[in-house]
């Protein structure tokens, strides 16, 4: 029966692709540029969701299917979804990121975090020491002694490696939340992975700002000013403050209106994104704080989660399929030995750092054995970081960007699969989407 259903889904995807490919050439309509993204969105939603269902049939997370569908339909392979479609749908991406950040904050329950506070801090610190520092040292050595990169200036190689260290340490709250939501995972492993991912996300923001200042100072030979550090702290505090305010506004809505919870969470994500852009603050941090406040400082957390559970599926399908479509594999050809080396080294370092952190904090055996699987994916935040680097240092930033996009492409596919396996082994999955 399941085999028959899978064949039916595959057949539907194939027919849909043929029909869509047949429609595309007729788009010489005067409204082409207006209609195209919505048409592509409709096609992508269906095809990516079917891809997700197929992935579930093979015991993989739905987001892997969404990503693979995006890659297949995107400019790298079939080119049914064009680059202009992807950029037109950018707003949906931003909305999805805010939604994911609110969800991430909402999933962090203070009560559960307190139980694992020691492990969370220990693992975060060990990631900083082992993953970040070792990556920098190791890759600086490799790149200065081999011709894997087309860069020879040691200062630039050092700058390149500092940012690679940050990339190695970064996690993907989006992928983590998507897998947890899909399998409704609950337990110490889930709480710990969430806690570390969120904490690392905030630390990455600070580290990136400091790294930018440091790299600029070594390239231009000017010292880092105190004002810069104060500005950085002020910026983060402002984002947290905005998050607090936004969280309390959300509480007021849930308390006094409490209707249309699904629509509210989507609109709140959109407004928060626009607000943050307008005020120039970190919107992911702001949304995480807002979600955290609603969950832990009011009695309205269940309402927020209800809204999230009703609306997450379309948002994730669009977000991950667009993410897949925007992955460019052409760079992989140029750097594949260095990229594969980096992915493998990162995996080993994450495994060692997580094990060490968990061991030192006397975490339960499931955390000790499997929690590393939750820290492999990196996506949205990493991508935003390399875009800024490319804009600031265009000559070598473009090499870093191509390199990191290839790394993301591999980690996005491998990470969620391993994370799902880890959740399965630790026994924290409470819902199997494809089992009755």
């Amino acid at each position, binding site marked *: 029966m399941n085999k028959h*259903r899978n064949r*039916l*889904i595959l057949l*539907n995807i194939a*027919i*849909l692709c043929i*029909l*869509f490919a047949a*429609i595309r050439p*007729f*788009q010489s*309509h005067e*409204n082409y540029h*207006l*209609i195209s993204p*919505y*048409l592509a*969105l*409709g*096609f*992508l*939603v*269906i095809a990516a*969701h*079917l891809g997700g*269902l197929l992935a579930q049939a093979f015991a993989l997370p739905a987001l892997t299917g969404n990503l693979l569908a995006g890659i297949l339909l995107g400019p790298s392979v079939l080119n049914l979804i064009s680059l202009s479609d992807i950029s037109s749908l950018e*707003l949906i991406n931003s909305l999805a990121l805010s939604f994911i950040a609110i969800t991430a904050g909402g999933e962090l329950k203070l009560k559960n975090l307190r139980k694992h506070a020691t492990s969370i801090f220990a693992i975060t610190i060990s990631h900083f020491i082992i993953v970040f520092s070792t990556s920098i040292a190791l890759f600086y050595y490799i790149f200065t002694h081999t011709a894997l990169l087309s860069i020879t200036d040691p200062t630039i190689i050092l700058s390149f490696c500092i940012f690679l260290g940050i990339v190695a340490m970064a996690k993907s709250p989006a992928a983590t939340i998507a897998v947890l939501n899909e399998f409704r995972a609950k337990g110490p492993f889930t709480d710990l992975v969430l806690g570390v991912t969120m904490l690392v996300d905030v630390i990455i923001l600070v580290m990136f700002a400091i790294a930018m200042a440091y790299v600029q100072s070594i390239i231009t030979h000017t010292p880092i000013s105190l004002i810069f550090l104060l500005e950085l702290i002020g910026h983060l505090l402002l984002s947290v403050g905005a998050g607090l305010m936004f969280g309390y506004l959300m509480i007021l809505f849930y308390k006094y209106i409490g209707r*249309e919870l699904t*629509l509210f969470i989507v*609109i709140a994500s*959109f*407004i928060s994104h*626009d607000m943050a852009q307008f005020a120039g603050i970190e919107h992911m941090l702001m949304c995480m704080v807002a979600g955290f406040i609603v969950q832990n400082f009011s009695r309205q957390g269940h309402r927020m989660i209800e809204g999230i559970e009703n609306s997450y*599926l*379309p948002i994730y*399908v669009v977000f991950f399929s667009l993410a897949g479509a925007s992955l460019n594999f052409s760079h992989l050809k140029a750097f594949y030995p260095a990229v594969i080396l980096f992915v493998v080294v990162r995996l080993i370092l994450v495994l060692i750092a997580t094990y060490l952190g968990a061991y030192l904090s006397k975490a339960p055996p499931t955390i000790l054995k499997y929690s590393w699987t939750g820290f492999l994916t990196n996506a949205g935040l990493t991508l935003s970081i390399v875009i800024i680097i490319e804009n600031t240092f265009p000559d070598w930033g473009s090499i870093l960007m191509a390199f990191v996009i290839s790394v993301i492409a591999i980690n996005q596919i491998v990470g969620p699969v391993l994370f799902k396996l880890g959740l399965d082994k630790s026994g924290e999955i409470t819902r199997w*989407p494809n089992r009755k």
Partner: protein
Amino acid sequence: MNSSLVFVLALILAYTGVFFIFKRERLTLLAGFEFLFIGYILYFQDFDASTLKPLLYPFLCWMGMLIGLQMRFSDLKKLPKSLYTTLISFTLLTIIIPTGLFYLIGFSIQSVVMAIACCSICYRNTAHYITNKERHSRFVLFLISAIPFASIIALLLFYIGTDPIRDIGITLVFIVVSSILSRALLTSVQDKNSVILLLIGLILLVSETCAVFDVSALVVGFFVGIYLTNTCIWKTYIFRVVYHNEKQLFMVFLILLGLMAGLKLELLSAARIPAVVLTVLAVRYFILKFNFIAGFNYFYFVAPGGFALVILTDFWLKQGGIPGTLWFSEATLSIVILQLIGVLFSRQVSQ
């Protein structure tokens, strides 16, 4: 102000405003048409809203589907023949006579679409006042709710008449392909969340494809709805999903319509709008008088309701959907005035 912000604003306004418009005690004077004026206000602001125009097509497809999903053949067979006879005679008369009169007023080909639009009756207003459960009352209300079916078929016949090759050939291919594809996709999933997601995707895909080929999204949506409700295992759930938040989504449609279509009036409009209103009032009076009005006040059947605007929009978009089209502004305002007269006088006569 950017277009996405306007869309979110429209959503917020629609979802909050709907509680004030459709209060149980009584309807507001325009029974929801107020949102069209919000759109008009936004139209006169200085920003490019053209990126929102493609969003009108999914709304039309959704409304067509909503009507089509109610046409289950097993239920239709059980209905009395008298209902079909009354429905056909009412539709034919309320289309043919006004078409001629609108043509005399000065409208060209649009007079047919305007007559089809003006043939519908606002179910919400009528049901608000006809509350008894007698057989005749139920018959009348059922008839009113069935008018949109006849209107869409009349619209399709009109499209076929004006451009036979395109509308028989392409529309037929669209209806067949969209229906089979929709059913195949929806039967391949096993959970309700997937059904919702696929419906969203299908409505976007089908309606925007209709936009590319200049095919009526309303008509295609209608036939896809009929096919799904008669063949798909998820039929009851699909109807619940499509019907859910119907009022709110319609309010969003009105805001977008006002924003996209805009308003243009000339000196000539001062004469044509009252003429259209008077024509509809007179024609409807005579038809209702000799048909099935017995026992109810005439004003209960004056308000044309939102579906009239849906029909007009479908044709306007097929003609290119140019903002500030004179005939469209006049037709829309005539319908708004008829709605106002209908709701206002229904309220007064019922007191």
